[in-house]
C-alpha cells in the first residue's frame, strides 16, 4: 500500500504537469488550471503525510542489470525531505496563482513546476545511487525551464550557466558512483553506509580522491564554493515563486545526494579525519563566510537573497561534513528552517515586485508602512535567518556549532573545533548586516518621494498584495516562529534518525 502511495507521489505531479502541457481544456481558463494544480498539490501533501505515517516499503522500478536496480523506498530521511519539499511547493504555488498573472508563459511555468516536483519527490525516495543520479539530472533538466522563464538574453545566459555547472557537478557525482557501486556490499542504501572495506577494488587513497570529487560534484547543486557561481545568476532571473523553490528547496537536492552518499553508501567512519573531510569542511566554511560577504555588497534584493542561500545551504553542508550526530541533526533542522525562511524571503521579494516593480534594496525605504504584512513577514524571516531566538534559525545553528565542538575534538586538525562556530557566528552577524537594514529602512525611513515606479505610479499608492499572496507569506513566517519556539518534535525525530546514521 505504501509502495503504491509512494509511486503515486511521484506520478501525480508528473501527470498534472503533463495535463497542463497537453490538454487544451485545462488551459482554456486560468481558473481551471489553477484549480487543477492547487488541488493536485494539496492531494500530494496528503499523500506524503500518509506515506510518513505508513511503514517503510520498497518499489523496484527496473533492473538495468542484475546488480543495478532502479528503486524507490520511503525511508525516514526520504520522507523528511519529501515533506519539506512538498510543503514549500504547495505554499509557493498558491502565491504563484496571483503572482504569475502578470507574467507570460504561464502554461510552461506550471508544467515544469509540477514536473520538477515529481522528479524531486523521486530523488528523495531514491533507494540506490543510480536512481538518485537519474532524478538528480532530471531535476536539473526540468528546473531549467523555470530559470529560463523570462526568455530574455539574461535568462538564457543564466540557464546555460546553471546547466554547465549542474551537469558538470552531476557527472562528477556519477564518476563517484562508478567507483562506489562495485565497492558496496549492497546496491541499496544502508543506514550508516555499506562500504566493502575488505575487498576494495581500488586503493583507499584513490577512493578518497574520487569521493572528494563526487561530493564536490553533488555540492554544486547546494552552491558550495568553488562551484557556487551559477546560483546567484540563475536563481534571481526566475519568477519570484520559482526563485523561492529554487533557492529554498532545489538547493537541498544537492544536500540529499551528499547525505545519501556519505551516510547511506560510504559510511561516515571511512571519511572521518581524512583530508577529504577537512577539505570539504573547509570549503563549506569558506562558503558560509563568503556568501554572506557577497550578500552584504549586493544591492539587488533577489541577488542578495541568492547569495544568502549560498551561505546558508553551506551551513547545512558544514553540519553534514562534520560527521557528527548533533551536527547532522542541526543540518536537518536547518534544511527545514532554511526552506521555510528562504521561501518566505523570496516570496516577500516577489510581493514587492508584484506591487511596485522595485528590485533594489535602497528603493525600499519607507515601504514598510505601505506594505506592512509583507515587511513584517520579511522581518520575521530575517530574524530567523540570522538566528535570533525564538525563531527557527537559532536552534539549527546552535546544533551545528555544538556538533562542531563535539565532533572535531580529537580530529587531526583541532582548529575546526573553534573555527567552525566562530565562522558561523561571524556569518550570522553579516546576515544581520545584509537583512536588518532593509527592514529598518522600510519601517523607519521616509518614502523616497522622487522615486517613480516602473508603472509610472507614485510610491504612495503601493499596498499589500491580495490574500492569495499574503496568506502564504504569513503561513511561512508563522511556521518559522512556531517551529522555532517549539522545536521539540523536530529535534526528537532528527535525533532518532541521526543516531542510526552516525
Amino acid at each position, binding site marked *: 500500500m505504501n509502495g503504491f502511495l509512494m509511486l503515486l507521489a511521484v506520478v501525480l505531479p508528473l501527470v498534472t504537469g503533463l495535463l497542463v502541457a497537453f490538454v487544451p481544456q485545462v488551459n482554456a481558463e486560468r481558473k481551471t488550471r489553477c484549480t487543477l494544480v492547487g488541488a493536485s498539490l494539496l492531494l500530494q501533501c496528503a499523500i506524503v503525510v500518509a506515506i510518513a505515517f505508513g511503514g517503510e516499503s520498497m518499489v523496484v522500478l527496473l533492473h538495468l542489470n542484475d546488480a543495478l536496480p532502479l528503486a524507490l523506498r520511503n525511508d525516514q530521511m526520504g520522507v523528511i525531505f519529501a515533506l519539506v519539499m512538498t510543503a514549500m511547493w504547495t505554499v509557493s504555488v498558491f502565491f504563484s496563482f496571483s503572482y504569475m498573472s502578470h507574467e507570460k508563459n504561464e502554461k510552461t511555468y506550471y508544467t515544469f513546476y509540477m514536473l520538477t516536483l515529481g522528479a524531486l519527490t523521486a530523488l528523495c525516495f531514491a533507494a540506490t545511487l543510480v*536512481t538518485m543520479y*537519474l532524478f538528480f539530472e532530471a531535476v536539473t533538466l526540468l528546473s531549467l525551464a523555470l530559470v529560463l522563464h523570462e526568455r530574455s538574453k539574461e535568462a538564457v545566459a543564466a540557464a546555460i550557466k546553471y546547466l554547465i555547472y549542474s551537469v558538470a557537478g552531476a*557527472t562528477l557525482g556519477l564518476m563517484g558512483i*562508478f567507483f562506489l557501486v562495485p565497492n558496496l556490499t549492497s546496491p541499496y542504501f544502508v543506514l550508516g553506509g555499506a562500504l566493502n572495506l575488505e575487498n576494495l577494488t*581500488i586503493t583507499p587513497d584513490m577512493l578518497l580522491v574520487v569521493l572528494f570529487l563526487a561530493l564536490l560534484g553533488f555540492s554544486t547543486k547546494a552552491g558550495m564554493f568553488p562551484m557556487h557561481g551559477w546560483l546567484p545568476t540563475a536563481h534571481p532571473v526566475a519568477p519570484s515563486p520559482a526563485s523561492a523553490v529554487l533557492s529554498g528547496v532545489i538547493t537541498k537536492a544537492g544536500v540529499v545526494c551528499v547525505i545519501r552518499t556519505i551516510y547511506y553508501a560510504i559510511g561516515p567512519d571511512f571519511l572521518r579525519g581524512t583530508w577529504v573531510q577537512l577539505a570539504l569542511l573547509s570549503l563549506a566554511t569558506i562558503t558560509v563566510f563568503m556568501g554572506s560577504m557577497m550578500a552584504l555588497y549586493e544591492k539587488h534584493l533577489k541577488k542578495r537573497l541568492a547569495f544568502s542561500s549560498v551561505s546558508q545551504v553551506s551551513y547545512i553542508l558544514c553540519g553534514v561534513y562534520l560527521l557528527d550526530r548533533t551536527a547532522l541533526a542541526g543540518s536537518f533542522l536547518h534544511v527545514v528552517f532554511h526552506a521555510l525562511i528562504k521561501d518566505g524571503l523570496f516570496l516577500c521579494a516577489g510581493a514587492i515586485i508584484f506591487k511596485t516593480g522595485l528590485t533594489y534594496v535602497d528603493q525600499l525605504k519607507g515601504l514598510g508602512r505601505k506594505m506592512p504584512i509583507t515587511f513584517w513577514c520579511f522581518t520575521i524571516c530575517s530574524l530567523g535567518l540570522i538566528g535570533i531566538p525564538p525563531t527557527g534559525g537559532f536552534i539549527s545553528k546552535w546544533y551545528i556549532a555544538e556538533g562542531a565542538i563535539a565532533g572535531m575534538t580529537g580530529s587531526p586538525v583541532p582548529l575546526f573545533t573553534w573555527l567552525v562556530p566562530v565562522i558561523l557566528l561571524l556569518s550570522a552577524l553579516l546576515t544581520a548586516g545584509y537583512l536588518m537594514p532593509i527592514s529598518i529602512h522600510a519601517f523607519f525611513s521616509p518614502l523616497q518621494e522622487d522615486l517613480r515606479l516602473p508603472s509610472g505610479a507614485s510610491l504612495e499608492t503601493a499596498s499589500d498584495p491580495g490574500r492569495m499572496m499574503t496568506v502564504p507569506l504569513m503561513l511561512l513566517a508563522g511556521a518559522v516562529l512556531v517551529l522555532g519556539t517549539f522545536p521539540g518534535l523536530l529535534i526528537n525525530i532528527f535525533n532518532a534518525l541521526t543516531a542510526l546514521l552516525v
Partner: protein
Amino acid sequence: MLIAAVLLPMALGAILPLFRFRREGARSLYIMLSVLATSALMLPLVFTGAPGRETLFQITETLPIAFKLDGAGRVFAGIVSMLWPLATLYGLEYMQKDARKYTFFAFYIITYGVTLGIACASNLITLYLFYELLTLITLPLIMHGGSTRNIRAGLKYLYYSIGGAALVFIGLVYVIYYGGSTEFVYGGLGAMTMGATAGSLRIGYMICFLGFGVKAAIFPLHTWLIEAAVAPTPVTALLHAVAVVKSGVFAIIRATWFIFGPALLRGTYAQHIPLALASITIVYGCTMALKEQNIKRSLAYSTVSNLSYCILGALLLTEGGLRSSLMHMVYHAVIKITLFLCAGMYLKKGIVYSQDMRGVHRATPEVSAIYLLGALSLTGLPPLLGFLSKWMLATSAIQQGSRLALVGVAALTISAVLTFFYLVLPGLTTYMGKPERAYAYRELSPGWKALAPLAVLSVIILVLSFWSAPIGSFFAYAAAGGL
C-alpha cells in the same frame, strides 16, 4: 547459408544498373526487397547461431576464404542486418531527387554484403579481403556528390584506408608466418607463441592495431571520418556511424581477442599504448564535437569519441571489458544512426549548423523529439540505453584497476559532460527560443519513408532501455567466447 547471405546483396547490387525499370516505384521496390531478403537470410542465423564453417574457396591449402558466425560475429552481423533496411528506406526518401541515385544504391547494396563478409569472416585473411573491398566499394558513395569537397574527402579516405590496410597486411604476414593459421580462436592462437618470441608478436599486434585503427578512427588517424561527413546522410548515418567504423572496431576486437590473444598483450606496452590512445581519442573527439558547429561534422567527432569507448573496453583485456565493448558497439550504433538520420532531415531543410536548430521543434515535432531521445541516450541518462554500456565500461575498468584504466574512467566522465553540451543542449534549444524565420506547424516534417525508420529506431532505443536483460546476457555469452 552464410555464403549466400554475403554474396546475395553483392550480386543483387551489382546487377541493379543492368535493369531498365519502367517505373520509379519498381526500382525502389527492387532495392528494398534485395536488402530485406538479405536481412531475412541473416537475422535467423544471428538469433539462432550458425554452427560450422563454410569455405568459399582456398587461396592456398592453409589459407581458406571462409565464414563462420561466433558470438562476436553475431553481434556485429546483428547490428548490420537490423539497421541496413532502415537506412535504405530512409535513403529512398533522402535521395529521391538525386539524378544518380541508382548507381548510389547499387554500391549501397553491395556494401551490405561486404560488411556481412567482415562480420562473418572466419579468419584474418577473409576479414582482410573484405576489409579492403569495403574501402573500394564505399569510395563512390563518399564521392557521390561529385563536388571538389566530395572528391577530396574520398581521396583522403582512400589514402588513409589503403595506408591502414597496408599496415594490416604486414600484421597479417606476421600472423601467417608465426601462427601458420589465421583462424579466429577465442583467446588467441596458442600455437603462435611457439614460433616466435613474444616481443616480435607484440610488434605485429601494434602494427595490426594501428592499421585497423584507421577505420576505427583513433586519434590521430581519424581525420578522414570528419571529412567524409560531406557524403549523403544515408552514407554518413549507416557507414560512418555503423558499418565502416564498426568494422574497424570489430577487426581490432578480432585481432586482440581472437588472433594475438589477451594473454600475450596483458600488462605490456601493446596494451598500454592502445589504452592511452583510446582515452586521448575519447576526450579529443568530444572536445572537437563541442567546438564544431556543423551538425553532421559534430556527430562525426562524437563517433570518433564513442568508437574509442569500444576500443577502451576491448583493450581492458577482461571479459567484462569485452562485454561492455560489444554492448557499446550495438548501443552506439543504434543511437548514432538515429541522430544522423535526424540531422539529415534537418540538413534537407537547410538547417546545417547547430545554432539553426533553435526553436524548430514546432516545424518538425517528430524529429526534434527523436533527436532529444537519442541525445539523452548517448549522454547516458539512466535508464536510457547509453547509460548501461557506459556503466559496464566504467565498472569493468575500475575492476581491472590498472592506472590507465582509471584514466579511461576519467576520460569517460569528461566525455559525458561534453556529450551533454554538444548533443543535448542543441536538442534542448529546438524547444527554446525563436527560430530564424517563422515556420508553419510541421512545415519541415519529412515523409513516411524517413519517419518510419526513425520511429522504429526510437522504439528499439526504448525497448532496449527498459528490457535489456536478454541482450545483456547475450553480450556476456559472446564476450566469454560463446558461439
